């Protein structure tokens, strides 16, 4: 029975299912590192998912779909930045506002513009000669669509930006001690605008990875809590891209197992299966969130003394 559960396809779908988590949570890492808690991720993902889906539905081009998701994500990110950086709104509450906006708006647009459930021709798997043909390894690692590879490449790229560039240094400084960064001539608001927009763009991409790569459909509340888990994964991953990657893999593995167990007909109440990732999230957070790596200025708006 163990062999029936831990098949190569479970590992392959672990990597696939990790994609939206990675995009969203790496983006959120940028935002949180700079001190902005971006709780509206889920709403941005839904908007990105719908934009991508609609564009592919209308034009048949996945590239246009991808661009649509990136643009909508970036715009939602800018809106989030405006609310939390310029208007200095309470970030928890405004995040819920953005979530509800994305939830309602994406559904409204879907009902008005498409109406009936249809599927689209999304990103297809890329066949890599030789590598894709290796037994087991090929199935697990080299049999995915473009966005899966992009997500995994994003992780080292994000770590590089955060740790090795002047922009990354500014992000870390602004999230820990914005007063000091300001006194050193760093434009705190600009840095935060940039990170929150990056988070929005990547959340849009995360949505696209669901609607035009993983599932190739759109429906109301397509993300069903995935964006909130992504926020938690940033805590879980201790504000590092690598940690976020590990967390994403853990969660997608749980998801993949759950699907596999269901598919071989083992009886687990479906409510329990749906609950599992959330329960694990909460447990993980209880143990993970007390660490010192947390940006001290997280959720605190910055205003100069005058």
């Amino acid at each position, binding site marked *: 029975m163990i062999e029936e559960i831990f098949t190569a396809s479970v590992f392959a779908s672990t990597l696939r299912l990790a994609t939206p988590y990675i995009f969203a949570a790496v983006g959120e890492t940028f935002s949180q590192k700079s001190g902005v808690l971006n709780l509206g991720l889920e709403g941005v993902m839904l908007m990105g998912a719908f934009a991508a889906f609609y564009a592919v539905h209308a034009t048949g081009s996945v590239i246009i779909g991808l661009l649509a998701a990136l643009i909508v994500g970036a715009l939602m990110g800018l809106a989030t930045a405006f609310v939390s950086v310029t208007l200095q709104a309470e970030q928890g509450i405004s995040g819920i506002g953005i979530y509800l906006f994305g939830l309602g708006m994406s559904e409204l647009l879907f009902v008005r513009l498409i109406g009936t459930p249809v599927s689209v021709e999304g990103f297809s798997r890329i066949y890599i000669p030789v590598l894709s043909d290796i037994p087991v390894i090929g199935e697990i690692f080299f049999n995915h669509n473009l966005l899966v590879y992009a997500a995994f490449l994003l992780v080292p790229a994000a770590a590089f930006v955060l740790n*090795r*560039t*002047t*922009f*990354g*240094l*500014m992000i*870390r*400084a602004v999230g*820990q*001690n914005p*007063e*000091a*960064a*300001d*006194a*050193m*001539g*760093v*434009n705190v608001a600009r840095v935060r605008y940039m990170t929150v927009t990056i988070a929005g763009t990547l959340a849009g991409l995360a949505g696209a990875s669901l609607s035009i790569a993983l599932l190739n459909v759109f429906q109301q509340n397509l993300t069903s809590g995935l964006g909130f888990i992504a926020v938690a994964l940033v805590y879980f991953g201790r504000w590092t891209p690598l940690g976020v990657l590990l967390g994403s893999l853990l969660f997608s593995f749980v998801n993949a197992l759950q699907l596999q167990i269901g598919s071989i007909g083992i009886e687990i109440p479906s409510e329990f299966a749906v609950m599992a990732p959330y329960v694990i999230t909460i447990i993980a957070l209880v143990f993970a969130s007390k660490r*010192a*790596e947390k940006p*001290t200025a997280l959720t605190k708006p910055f205003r*100069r*003394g*005058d």
Partner: protein
Amino acid sequence: MPDTLPTQPRISQLHMRGMMKRFPGVLAVNNVDFSVEASNGRGEIHALLGENGAGKSTLMKILYGLYRADGGTIHVDNTPLTLRSPQDAIGRGIGMIHQHFMLVPSLTVAENIALGMKSTRGALLDLDRVRARVAELSERYHLKVDPDVPIWQLAVGEQQRVEIVRALYKGAALLILDEPTAVLTPGEVDDFFRVLRQMRDDGHLLVFISHKLHEVLAISDRITVLRDGQRVDTIPTSTASKLMLAQMMVGRPVVLEYDRKPCAPGDVKLMLDNVNALNDRGAAGLRDVTLFVRAGEIVGVAGVSGNGQHELAQTIAGLRPCTSGRIRANGQNITNKSPRVLHRCGMAYIPEERMIDGVIKDFSVAENFILHDHARPPYARGGLFMRFRGIRTASQQAIRDYEIKTPGTETPIKSLSGGNIQKLILARELGRKPQVLIAAQPTRGVDIGATEYIHQRLLEERSKGTAILLISEDLDEILALSDRVIVMYEGRIIGEMPREDVDIRQLGALMAGAQ
């Protein structure tokens, strides 16, 4: 030494004229002129002296581009300077070391220095280059710093060196130092002054902000005194004296030394026996602290900020659990007893964080005055109903007795000055006729006038036979009031001596941890 560093001063004179800055409700800087000038290649150390709230920081934050002035002009080498942000100031060679250090604790020294600077590698960090130039600077100015240590691992004195190196690195020709010595031991102050003198001799312009008279006299070339946002005068340091400066700061004659009757201690009133407690981070905050205070004596606890003084005060006051050991007050065991029980044992507490532990900010003067005894006569009937007449009469009496400046008993406490809030706390705590008094930083952020008053009151309590534990980071205060001095270092008591035997140099060494 080959001059490879961009430390060549680029400012020979700076003039601020008619500076104005208004905050809601206060005119923080009112028509102030201020200048710093080099002559014959030698820079200048210009001290900016004034009480807390005089407007020193505000004036200099304008010069650093953090605040925008409501009026006035700034000229650097006779060209007008407009400042919109610190970036503009840094670009013109103006640096500032703030009262609260502007360092990011989680970043390393090199990263903190690189922050906000252009990198020679474009978007990529060039920390190797930063390290190399930090090494050059630390050698030239004898400022030992390790570029790869994160800031949170450094002691305050070391953090200050990082601040100075960073300012030099950024090519500050004019460096503003806002109360830089507040965190240093006397020994460290000497080293620090040596660095400042060398910088001046290299042609740097320095603004030294302080409210400590002896430091200003020791280091500066000229002194400008501010009072209530206005410039009182600017004088060459060679013509200044302590008494004269103090009177300029306060605006009336002051007493700098107190008449103290000889100490005649009675029974032990407060006793700590091997007390241990944790700090806020959960590490050891107090380690095996043993001390006693007798009736009619003041025991001063000296030490550099963050060496357990805060934990000591809170543990005795019942606000922080004691993990082992015993505390006795007035003959009763008060270890881990609630503040209520301590009150009943005759203990009073003047807390360090007066706005957090001392008063309720949004309550009125009268309400704050009766905080402890609100349920008892004459303030309440039957333990339940407030008696407003009793409350009003008693607080009016306290306002008179303690010379508290307030528009009335119903004024919210937060609109009073630090000194007056502290006097109210004193009135409340001393009004209960305590036998043991814990005074933690009783005059921090309090003006000279109120400080003088508070000191006189503490000495009066001493002659009434109260046992007083004075915990203070202000060494002058410790020396002016104490009968016995205890030194704390890393949560331990590492020295104790009668006041007469205090040697300032030795005390400084103890504060820095020397055995």
